[in-house]
């Protein structure tokens, strides 16, 4: 049975969405990087059995990601320095934007 392009695309999107849920910064970024690179490498596959095999493997990995996201969230730790720094920058930027908007409204 040939695997449709739609199915692969959907699988790719689901894997990225699930990987985003890792509470650990390092696991999350690794999962995203690895999923992207695996699918990029998989683009060159032409043999249908190879494609089926790769898709099955990806489906298994997706199940692992889903389970490990749950486990990781059970024992989530404090966020890393760079995550907090990025958050702070984001909120301060939003603060500036909001104050600018307020200023606009006032004038």
């Amino acid at each position, binding site marked *: 049975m040939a695997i449709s392009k739609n199915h692969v695309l959907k699988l790719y999107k689901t894997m990225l969405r699930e990987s985003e849920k890792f509470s650990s910064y390092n696991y999350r970024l690794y999962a995203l990087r*690895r999923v992207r690179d695996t699918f990029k490498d998989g683009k060159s596959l032409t043999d249908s059995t190879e494609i089926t095999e790769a898709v099955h493997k990806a489906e298994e990995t997706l199940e692992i990601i889903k*389970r490990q996201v749950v486990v990781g969230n059970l024992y989530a730790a*404090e966020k890393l320095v760079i995550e907090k720094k990025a958050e702070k920058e984001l909120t301060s930027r939003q603060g500036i934007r909001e104050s600018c908007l307020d200023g606009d409204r006032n004038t």
Partner: protein
Amino acid sequence: MIRLSQMYALGQKSRGAKDISTAVYFGTFAVNQYCDGRVSNRQYATAPQVLGLPKERKPIDFTKQLPTDGRPLYLDAQATTPMDPRVLDAMLPYLTHYHGNPHSRTHAYGWESEKAMEAARKQVADLINCDPSEVIFTSGATESNNTAIKGVAHFYGAKKRHIITTQTEHKCVLASCRQLEGEDFKVTYLPVNNLGLISMEELEKAIRPDTALVTIMFINNEIGVRQPIRQIGELCKSKNIFFHTDAAQAAGKVPIDVNDLNIDLMSISGHKIYGPKGVGALYVRKRPRVRLEPIINGGGQERGLRSGTVPSPLGVGLGAACSICKQEMDYDHKWMELLSKRLMDKIYGSLDYVVRNGDPVNSYPGCINLSFAYVEGESLLMALKDVALSSGSACTSASLEPSYVLRAIGTDDDMAHSSIRFGFGRFTTMAEVDYTADHCIKNVKKLREMSPLWEMVQEGVDLKSIKWSRH
């Protein structure tokens, strides 16, 4: 305790309980209670005994000591690595439902554990291309090294009483050799050149007719230098000497084929390859057979070389870690090269007087040991408290002595004191490396501005020519 109460909270949540805050609070409360009780009851053997008033150490509140602006980044992959989620996923069933003793032959619980253990053994064997029966599960690379070195020495000790090793080995190898010296074995500690490599001529000269074992590590844990294992293997085979290599830092990171490299014994550690802590493996060649005298005697598990029940969840974890490492080796290696290039380019681009310790060519890119001249390593580590780094191996990180590995490669004392090891792993991100490099550059500059030595160097004074007066 913490797990139980968290599980309880989870159970409440899954049962549809709306307010779980009380349950969670109960969890943290219980933990504090538990720790307090345990620490205050402990007697310290080294604590000064004051008559009448037993002095009690205040329990440390670890939650308060953490920096408030987030957990530090982890760049100490040579000390240990975080467990891969895929490894944990393979292990969890054996930590919960499949709890059988893998050596029980009379019931299904034993069979399923044994099956998993043997599958894991096969995965370890596939990584290093040997037969599964040649792999022995141990508690880690330290036990593997001890078993290999002492085992061979004791078994062949009647005729062969000489061992060759190097000065830059891990402590557990050096300590095992010292122990054997106490039993009247002769040990040659080969020197290394200033790049950290041994010389093949010196090794050949050191071989005696009664040499039983050559033990040389694959990749150094402090400077990442890769020894010429292929040549050593060939030499040992031609001289009919057993060759043991400590591959704790190498297995799963660089391709290893024990038959191709003529390795007779090899130590592997689980927690250096994204597996669980507390498990390792020892490869023992069967053809030609290497015989060992076991350190641990008992029920005769693991071909009688390492008695004691194999921890099946840890074994499964080691197997999964090996199989993932085999599958991801090229991908990980490329990432390591990318990260190390990034760090080196950044640091070399904006700092002078930085020296990389060890050979930059024959090395593993995930381990970079740099010496920042005119900066004290410990103060730099303190300044970089946002990054988990080390100045050398974790075993010796408690002492302020400069590392013996750096001393063996002829590093000056001041440069040895200013060394920092950057270790990258599979889960290190580019942003982490950038953050580390930027902070490192900033702090080195700051510390150098405070240093009088740096001022003198800037004025053109040669520090080596100064005769410091003694008081």
